[in-house]
């Protein structure tokens, strides 16, 4: 009864929350555009032959001097803004999601084990987490990036940028998962269904993943949403700082950095349109995360 109501109630709340609906719609549109970028986009921003300098700096259609072919105008290279943004969003999402997957896998695994075994193993994991916490996300990511620059030979650095960036972001996010999973596991460890499973003589891995994990998924799901937003922001920030992705495979952050050159001139769209898309994406994900948090913790409603 309760399970059904809860599901039903989640749906009910969703239907009655305009913010959540709009957020979901915006996120869907951006994700859809990113996934099918190669089909939708007018030009391929990676292909130098597909655009021309003669089309450079065209404003969006509602401004004078626009070319109706480029709805949101073009940048100084003559790239269609919409195409750049779709491809940029794709890069941002790919990095964000893969970083999230790595962080979740590592964090949840370590957190569950730390909560289950307790004792020395727990202390070691948590001390590592402490050190990680003393080095905030951006710092960790920058550091890993710096190390990669020092270690990897110049020739392969460009090719590995995406991997390094993903790893750097993942390394700064796993602590969230580990701490949440550990705290929830501690709570579950005092519940009798876990005692029952241990008493029967079930293997620790089975107790952890079959019995405990489904019960701690709720808070982890919230962390996952919030951290996806963080990962995308982190990627954008690193690219903005100029140590993320190079300009020839731009993410949303890189687009904004390029747009900064036009802050003082009249070509506002080159800076602000990618900015709006980035903010819209992150706001939507955060609204959905907030909504999930409300469902799992109804007392804060």
């Amino acid at each position, binding site marked *: 009864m309760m399970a059904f109501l809860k599901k039903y109630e989640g749906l009910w709340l969703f239907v009655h929350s305009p913010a959540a609906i709009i957020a979901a719609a915006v996120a869907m549109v951006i994700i859809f555009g990113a996934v099918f970028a190669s089909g939708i986009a007018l030009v391929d921003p990676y292909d130098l032959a597909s655009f021309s300098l003669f089309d450079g700096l065209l404003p969006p259609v509602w401004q004078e001097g626009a070319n109706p072919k480029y709805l949101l105008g073009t940048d100084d290279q003559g790239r269609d803004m919409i195409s750049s943004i779709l491809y940029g969003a794709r890069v941002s999402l790919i990095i964000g999601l893969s970083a999230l997957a790595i962080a979740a896998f590592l964090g949840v695994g370590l957190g569950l084990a730390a909560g289950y075994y307790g004792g020395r193993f727990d202390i070691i994991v948590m*001390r590592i987490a402490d050190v990680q916490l003393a080095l*905030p996300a951006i710092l960790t990511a920058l550091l890993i990036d*710096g190390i990669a*620059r*020092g270690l990897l030979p110049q020739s392969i650095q460009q090719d590995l940028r995406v991997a390094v960036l993903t790893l750097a972001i993942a390394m700064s996010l796993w602590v969230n998962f580990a701490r949440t999973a550990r705290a929830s596991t501690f709570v579950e460890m005092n519940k009798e269904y876990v005692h029952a499973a241990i008493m029967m003589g079930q293997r620790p891995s089975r107790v952890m993943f079959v019995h405990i994990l489904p019960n701690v998924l709720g808070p982890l799901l919230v962390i996952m949403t919030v951290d996806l937003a963080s990962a995308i922001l982190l990627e954008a920030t690193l690219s903005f*700082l100029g*140590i993320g992705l190079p300009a020839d495979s731009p993410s949303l952050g890189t687009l904004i950095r390029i747009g900064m050159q036009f802050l003082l001139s009249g070509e506002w769209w080159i800076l602000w349109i990618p900015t709006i898309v980035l903010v819209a994406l*992150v*706001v939507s994900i955060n609204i959905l995360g907030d909504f999930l948090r409300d469902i799992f913790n109804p*007392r804060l409603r």
Partner: protein
Amino acid sequence: MVYFILKRIVQSVFVMAAVAFLAFSLFRFVGDPVTQMTGVETSVEDQERLRDELGLNDPFVYQFVRFTHEMVLGDFGFSYRTRQPVANMIADRIPATLELGVVALIISLMVGVPAGVYTALNSRGVMTQTILMTTLVGVSIPTFVIGIMLIFIFGVQLGWLPTFGRGGTVHIGNWQSSLFTIDGWRALLLPAITLGVYQLTLTMRLVRAEMMEVMRSDYIRFGMARGVPMRSLYYKHALKNTLVPVITIVGLQFGGVIAFSIVTESVFQWPGLGLLFLESIRFVDIPVMGVYLVVIAFFFVLVNLVVDLLYVAIDPRLRIRDVHDGLPEKI
């Protein structure tokens, strides 16, 4: 209580040692220090001699101990890029970042805590919903975008405030401060707001969540039931209990302030530690990167020790421990 503090100090030393080790590994293994220090024309023999002089052929543990020892003495080595002592470079930059961070933190607390209390106590008001929505957008806008927006509005469009640098500064001993001139404050305002906004939204949301949790507790309901004045219930009973967890987060937020100061300093060309760190990453200036790490970790550990002391001051349960308390009946 003494044990609690001692334990924290030991933990802090552990964290510092780990970070020092990280910095040392950076220095030792990321790139070859000798190649970095010498030019192409240096002969192999000279390189070998330098290697010996630097002690790079000594046993690993010995090198680490010496590295740590030098760090403790304040000898941080030389920058690959500028060939200056890292200690001086860092010392020059600390005031700018510290002033920026502290002002930002103050802004975030001065606005965040009252806003959190207000939205917790009037949880259904229109005002609350508006504030909550605004803060949600607030956490979602990357710091650099906030900076750009502020520069665009107040610097470019309105032309009220400078958009880069520290403005007029005053020397107090070795400390270069922008807090004593109007010009300095004008320059500080936009970066400090940029840096403070994100922390502000976090503080507000946290205070709100904790306060709502406390307001539902039995002792607040009991206070209601015996007619304790609402004002006292809100601001004496509830707020004090809310502060316990909030203080921890403020300690952690300091880390956030430092991290985001890198971004803010980059946007506003603010000559602080963050900008130095960014430059050193671009040029793979390992000694500066390592020392920056150690300095940041040191501040972090220091702040969290202060937080622990505050904890003890607020929560009597940590001050006096009853033997009857917390005996486990569980496995």
